[in-house]
């Protein structure tokens, strides 16, 4: 299993959630966060906004669904045709085990140690830059 954390614009989060629902991935946890990216916040004339409000969507999916979910998030979270600064980031990390509390059901992911490393390298996929190649 893979945990996908997507940091998206607050105004886009509903669109992303809808896209995920339509794609058959209803399970999402959403939290409001503040942060800045490599553009060091936002400068509007004299005022610099250091911490911009974003929404963090957290979902855990099967290994084989990873690329599809990332693509759906990316397509729905991008603003305009080509995207813009501030559209967000997607981080991918491995999950060893997942438990459903109500049933006590346990899911274990079995993957070789190597793949864990590569999953981390792929981790930071820039929503803007990477999209043109993958879509």
């Amino acid at each position: 299993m893979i945990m996908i954390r997507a940091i998206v614009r607050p105004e886009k989060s509903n669109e992303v959630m809808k896209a995920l629902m339509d794609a058959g991935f209803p399970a999402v946890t959403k939290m409001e966060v503040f942060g800045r990216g490599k553009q060091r916040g936002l400068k509007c004339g004299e005022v610099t906004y250091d911490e911009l409000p974003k929404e963090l969507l957290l979902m855990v999916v099967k290994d084989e669904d990873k690329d599809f979910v990332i693509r759906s998030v990316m397509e729905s979270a991008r603003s305009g045709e080509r995207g813009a600064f501030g559209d967000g980031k997607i981080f991918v990390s491995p999950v060893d085990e997942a438990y459903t509390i109500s049933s006590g059901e346990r899911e274990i992911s079995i993957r070789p140690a190597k793949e864990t490393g590569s999953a981390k390298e792929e981790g930071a996929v820039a929503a803007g830059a990477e999209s043109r190649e993958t879509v």
Partner: protein
Amino acid sequence: MKEIIAIIRMNKMGQTKKALINAGFPSFTAHKVMGRGKGFVDLDLLRGAAEGLEDAIPQLAHGPRLIPKRILKMVVPDDKVELLVETVIKVNQTHHAGDGRIFVMPIIDAIRIRTKESGLEAINEMNE
């Protein structure tokens, strides 16, 4: 070293905290979050539809709304994972959809800022 992310019901927080301390896991980080699972249950809409509100019935198809939850994050040594997961499940299990989920993820390193200890020493909370 593993990071454990548990998503639980809002009203189970107190019981969970107590159980975690008794089991020897005093430290965690908590957050209020909104989420949805695979269950297609929206209590407001269902109630509305049951009362015969015209507006609620077409909305039923649009899937669940987000439900407030608490998220707990803990980092523990590998051999404690099982105990922690058992503790959280024992307290939170009501056998109904919406009890939450637990994820176990690998963590490469941990560092205690105060003493610069790293690795297992940094997450050892019982020998203070």
